[in-house]
């Protein structure tokens, strides 16, 4: 087997013409989890989905969700898929049942407190946001920031390659990576292969599930729920190929928006503006103007070596504005009006005809979708 692309291994849509992309400006994320909850209430409220958070926000540095995901392998190396670990129920954790009965009606008074019930599958020892706000560094130079994560709808989706039953595919029209759940046999090779560990398993239904980028919303030009609900106005949605879009400018023109773990080789279409940070303090608590609180080498471990130039660009633009100048980059990141975030995806979902059967689905699975089989 040669490099990816041979045998249709990466799915039909590698380099989809209208690839939808997103940019998260981490300088504005406050870790409120509104995006996570917006997704949760929209998509993962059914049986077997309790522990699923297609959108999740973790404190960095941290073990994240699933626990220790960055060390679980997967992705591509030199055009070959890299074996990975399939995160299990205990590594995701969450989806808890609580001992309400015992606490409220058990007659044990204040000697019992509310806690998740251990069903023996190890899920009570971790959760989606378990290490919130722990962060890293030592006082007085402790630091943390928030990292919202979802499926990257990758240009070379190794999950699609790994699916033996041909259930996973990348949509030609917009590059969204989807799964035909009726074809999914629950083999979970996709979960092993995805280096971002953003695929969940529905044990009750024996199918894997992951973020669908709110494709029914995209089809009627409504931004995905995580983006639209974000009170920080930091999530851009659009095409990276449209020269006029903020996404194109942030990713390609100014090169301040970078993929997470580019070394995983899957070509993410979710990008991040890395966080600037205040200066470090010396031991005598005087300010070390030269050194940012968040270690640049840590940011490089997340976003690759281009992070240094991205941070330099942002600092240069900040200095320009502080000196009384103008910066199109900063104006773009400030987002003076919410609709500036979403390109053509600005339709108000409240205006849609929601009568049963009225939600149009424009793009089906294209005929002749290649599979790995």
């Amino acid at each position: 087997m040669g490099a990816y692309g041979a045998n249709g291994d990466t799915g039909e849509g590698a380099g989809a013409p209208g690839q939808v992309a997103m940019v998260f400006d981490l300088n504005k994320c406050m870790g409120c989890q509104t995006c996570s909850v917006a997704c949760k209430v929209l998509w993962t409220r059914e049986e077997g989905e309790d522990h699923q958070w297609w959108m999740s926000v973790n404190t960095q540095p941290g073990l994240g969700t699933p626990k220790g995901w960055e060390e679980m392998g997967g992705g591509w190396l030199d055009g070959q898929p890299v074996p990975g670990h399939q995160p299990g129920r205990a590594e995701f954790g969450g989806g808890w049942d609580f001992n309400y009965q015992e606490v409220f009606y058990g007659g044990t008074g204040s000697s019992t407190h509310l806690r998740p019930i251990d069903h023996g599958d190890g899920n009570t020892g971790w959760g989606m946001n378990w290490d919130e706000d722990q962060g890293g560094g030592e006082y007085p130079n402790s630091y943390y920031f928030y990292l919202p994560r979802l499926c990257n709808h990758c240009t070379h989706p190794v999950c699609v390659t790994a699916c033996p039953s041909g259930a996973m595919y990348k949509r030609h029209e917009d590059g969204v990576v989807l799964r035909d759940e009726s074809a999914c046999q629950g083999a979970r090779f996709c979960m092993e292969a995805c280096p971002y560990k953003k695929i969940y398993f529905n044990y009750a239904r024996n199918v894997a599930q992951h973020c669908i980028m709110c494709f029914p919303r995209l089809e009627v030009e409504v931004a995905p729920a995580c983006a639209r609900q974000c009170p920080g106005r930091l999530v851009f949605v659009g095409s990276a190929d449209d020269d006029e879009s903020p996404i194109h400018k942030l990713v390609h023109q100014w090169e301040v928006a970078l993929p997470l773990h580019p070394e995983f080789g899957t070509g993410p279409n979710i990008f991040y503006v890395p966080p600037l940070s205040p200066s470090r303090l010396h031991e005598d608590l005087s300010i070390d103007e030269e050194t940012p609180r968040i270690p640049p080498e840590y940011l490089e471990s997340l976003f690759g070596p281009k992070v240094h130039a991205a941070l330099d660009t942002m600092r240069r633009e900040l200095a320009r504005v502080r000196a009384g100048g103008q910066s199109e980059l900063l104006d773009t990141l400030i987002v003076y009006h919410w609709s500036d975030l979403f390109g053509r995806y600005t339709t108000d979902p409240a205006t849609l005809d929601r009568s049963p059967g009225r939600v149009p689905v424009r793009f089906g699975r294209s005929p002749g979708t290649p599979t790995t089989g």
Partner: protein
Amino acid sequence: MGSLTAPEVGEEALDPDAGAWDSIPSEGVPLVPVPIEAQLNAYVRAAWTGRDYGRSGPVELALARCGGRLLARLSWDGSAVPPGEFTDAAGLLLPREPGTASPVTMGTHAEPVSLWQWRDRLASQQGLPSAKYLVSTGPGVFRPVPAGGEVSARSSRAGARWSVVLAGPAEALATGSVGVAVWDGANAERAGIGAVCATWVEVTP
């Protein structure tokens, strides 16, 4: 390998422990690992090359007919390890055309085979069907039959030994041969990673 018959039996034979099976001749079917070179999926090849799998078997196989249904009783030593992420599974392979090549690849794109697959269910999976009627065109390349393929299964376990009766439409035996496959859940076997018979078992009409 010898050949089997499929005598007419009563409904009670849907139970793998039914006495009806005692008088039906069975055949010990040896299994081999589905070859790693036959795996069509670059990820599966990368992840499983050099790993041990497909050691299950032999499967004691007996067939019967009940009304319009074909019944297949498979019995084999499963793993003593309790199920983790993956559960034990077994399947009956049925060529869809006469002259189909060896079942060792679980069919090919040119020569699809039917797969009646039983899978042990976790406590949280009791709402799922006990078996599926699939079409297989290669190792793990399984697709559900759109309609009309009703397959059911009942299983029992004595120690580590599984006994499973799969029941489905008797027309599926039209080519007169069958094969079997077993997946060891404790070894994370699933899809094309499992044990399969290398030759078809002939069924005497």
